[in-house]
């Protein structure tokens, strides 16, 4: 009974991992999986409800919705990796250095900038950045990545603060190991756990944010199939073709759930307080 419960707890994380693996598989083999060209328009088959030929139906341009959902997975996985990648490249080093050296720069410059950045609602910040830079996938990624960076600074810094006075760090210092080496070889590896959890959960939010921006028309531009922009186009057809809204949204939901489950599972696995 106990091991069953334990499995239930970590099992959810496992399901999350499987969902993500499935997403990667679909994205890699989209060409083989999709029965049609995602952008091929067929005016003889406009707004067909799901049927044997088009299992998810067709949209107002006669494009196969299933094929578009399959290809949309590529955008989502890119969104997750790129936005979180940008956030980590900016956030983790800043967190490492400010946490390690502390002092004026840490308390009065970096952390206050972080506070100020976090005062801007995330999606509004992303909207404003893409307004300035122009719409498009790359700019949306930059906007989301910048929006995520503060949380990585905070989590990395918090880890470093709890590690910097550990005995093994002091020991390394006393035998003359250089700061850089201490930070990257001794502190960073031990701080990675929470950073990885944060990255996993941020990927879930990143996919949602990309879908939101694309839904508003500021992310991925037509005709590229992305789940958010598909929902944008399907919205005006809700009363005639509700099925066109079902699958792209369901796809976002399942994939985001996958990342959340994995993140949650990792958290429970790595956090000794909840591991019981």
């Amino acid at each position, binding site marked *: 009974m106990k091991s069953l419960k334990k499995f239930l707890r970590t099992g959810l994380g496992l399901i999350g991992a499987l969902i993500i693996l499935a997403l990667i598989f679909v994205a890699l083999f989209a060409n083989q999986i999709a029965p049609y060209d995602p952008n091929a328009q067929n005016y003889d088959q406009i707004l067909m409800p799901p049927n044997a030929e088009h299992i998810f139906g067709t949209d107002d341009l006669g494009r196969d919705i299933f094929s578009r959902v399959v290809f949309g997975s590529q955008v989502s996985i890119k969104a997750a990796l790129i936005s979180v990648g940008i956030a980590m490249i900016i956030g983790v080093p800043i967190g490492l250095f400010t946490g390690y050296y502390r002092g004026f720069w840490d308390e009065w410059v970096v952390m*206050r900038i972080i506070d100020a950045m976090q005062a801007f609602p995330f999606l*509004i910040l992303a909207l404003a950045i893409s307004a300035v830079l122009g719409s498009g996938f790359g700019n949306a990624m930059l906007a989301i990545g910048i929006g995520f960076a503060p949380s990585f600074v905070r989590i990395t810094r918090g880890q470093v603060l709890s590690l910097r006075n550990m005995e093994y760090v002091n020991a390394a210092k006393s035998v003359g190991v250089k700061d850089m080496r201490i930070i990257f070889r001794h502190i960073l590896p031990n701080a990675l756990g929470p950073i990885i959890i944060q990255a996993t959960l941020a990927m*879930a939010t990143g996919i949602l944010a990309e879908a939101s921006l694309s839904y508003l028309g500021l992310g991925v531009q037509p005709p590229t199939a992305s789940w958010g922009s598909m929902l944008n186009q399907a919205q005006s057809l809700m009363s005639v073709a509700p099925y066109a809204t079902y699958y792209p949204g369901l796809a976002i939901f399942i994939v985001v759930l996958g990342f959340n489950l994995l993140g949650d599972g990792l958290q429970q696995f790595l956090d000794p307080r909840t591991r019981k």
Partner: protein
Amino acid sequence: MFVLKRLLLTIPILFLVSIMTFSFIHMIPGDPARVILGQEATPEAYQALRQELGLDKPIAWQYVSWVGKVLHGDLGISITDRVPVVDLIAQRLPATVELTIGTFVFALLIALPTGILAAMRRNTWIDYTSSFIALGGMSIPSFWLAMMAIIYFTVENHWLPSSGYVPFFQDPKQNLLAMILPCIATGLRESAVLMRMLRSSLLEVVNMDFVRTAKAKGLNEVRTMLGHVLRNALIPVVTTSGLMVAGLLGGLVITESIFSIPGFGRLIVESVFKRDYVTVQGAILVSAILVVFVNLLVDLLYVLIDPRMKAGKGADS
């Protein structure tokens, strides 16, 4: 001491927020006036806009004069609508405030009972199911949930309107009806976040000494939970709610677009598409200031709920 420190801490944050918002116009690649007006603009119009935005002055002077205006409640004139941005925002805020309150009420109605139940029945199927559903709730894109709600409640069954917002004081019944779906669509996610927070916070308190004392005194489970545990567990939940306001303001951008509610978020989206940068700038400034003050309020509330805070065990950085 804590209160004073917290108030002082707000000053540098507001200063940095103002610098970031001010830089917004200057982040536009190239010449902002040119980008806003387009290539066909007459030289006169171009010069006039440069003067209006103050772009012909040195940058430090521009910042000081901009902050001076902001402090007097002047956020500039909308480029496309030619009305003061402050008026535009003031028109749009009531709908958003109402949505925010409605969303919170809905979220609390769901989160309080489920969170308490999950914590009381820890590690049972009730706990697992509700935790799983909560993760699911956090994963649903709110705009998709909104669409599904519209298809079910409006398109198929004509139970609830999906648009047609009217101000509350004009027609309370119509107003509330039009608010139900938007509040559910945004509130589900927030309720999931709150429920998870409440559950883990309850579980932390449950193991404390005073709870054991209460139980030893012979109080039953429900009275211990509601009378002793909940009060203490609510403290971190209040903080979370404060932090949620920022996310909520962002989320409402989308909800308002779908349900055509003339709110603050929709103003931002419209202005982004109209390239009305002055309005966007004013709106992001107002949203950041709102967030800063809500967080300040929550921290001060903290002192009221938890007298231990006053002693100076501050929640710094």
